[in-house]
């Protein structure tokens, strides 16, 4: 079930993925911290020691990822704008690398498809260079390189 990622405009990215499970379960895996910590991890060697997710409009999000080998870490904070149980989440997020990335508005929908679920995630930023930066920070190699770089800098 291939994932598709499309840069649907200079400021939007659309991700689409099919899951062989009902929408309620795929949705649950996106809003329950105990479940998110099992998969929302990025490359091998990273864990998610902090996973706070207040699943309601106005609720706050905070994730912290840590590299188990070298101790590097970065975080994400966000706010939920809208939740339709089992069907849709709209939230705003940004990463702290530690430099703060521009706000990214994410609209995630879970729609029944056959016996499973089609998840579509549309990410929108304010300007195209923000999207370029976001795609770059999504790169495994980029993240690890940025942490290698931080380690060589003088402590703040």
């Amino acid at each position, binding site marked *: 079930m291939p994932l598709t990622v*499309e840069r649907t405009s200079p400021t939007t990215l659309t991700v689409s*993925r099919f899951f*062989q499970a009902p929408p309620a379960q795929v949705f649950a*895996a996106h809003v329950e911290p105990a479940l998110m910590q099992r*998969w929302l*991890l*990025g490359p091998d060697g990273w864990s998610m020691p902090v996973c706070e997710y207040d699943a309601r409009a106005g609720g706050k999000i905070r994730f912290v990822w840590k590299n188990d080998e070298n101790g590097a870490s970065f975080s994400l904070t966000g706010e939920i704008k809208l939740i339709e149980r089992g069907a849709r989440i709209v939230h705003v997020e940004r990463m702290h690398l530690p430099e703060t990335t521009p706000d990214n508005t994410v609209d995630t929908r879970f729609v029944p498809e056959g016996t499973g679920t089609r998840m579509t995630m549309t990410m929108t930023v304010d300007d195209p260079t923000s999207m370029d930066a976001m795609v770059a920070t999504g790169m*495994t190699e*980029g993240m690890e390189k940025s942490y290698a770089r931080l380690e060589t800098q003088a402590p703040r």
Partner: protein
Amino acid sequence: MGRAPPIDLESTLQALADPTRRAILTRLADGEATVTELCAPFDLTQPAISHHLKVLEQAGLIARRVDGARRPCRLAEGALRPLDDYLRPLREAMERNYTRLDALLVEMGDVEAAPPRAAPPRKTHPKQRGRPRVRRRRPAGRVENPPRKEL
């Protein structure tokens, strides 16, 4: 630096920032088509479609050949490679997460699908000193390491 190569990411993204142009590229992924054939799925005039084709051609995404009176369009060789290269690492990072999610969903499905277990007999084994066995839940937050094998 010298002149930018004909297919650059910026032009590609501008060309793709239109749903009609994206749909045209999708159609051309199936093979060559003439302007008339490309117009068919859309509620647009031929000049409008021709304008879109011009944008795609100038971005180096499509090429046209002459076949008598027709000028069939095709995807230009390697046209989407810069975009694909640019998005591939992000796609791979997300796919790693979603592969884990697939496995988790199977587990969740197994838990839901399993018929309710009959209560285990309360008899205790001599070694257990009178305490009934309790199935322990894995503590929340403990993360399973994915297998170390390269996929």
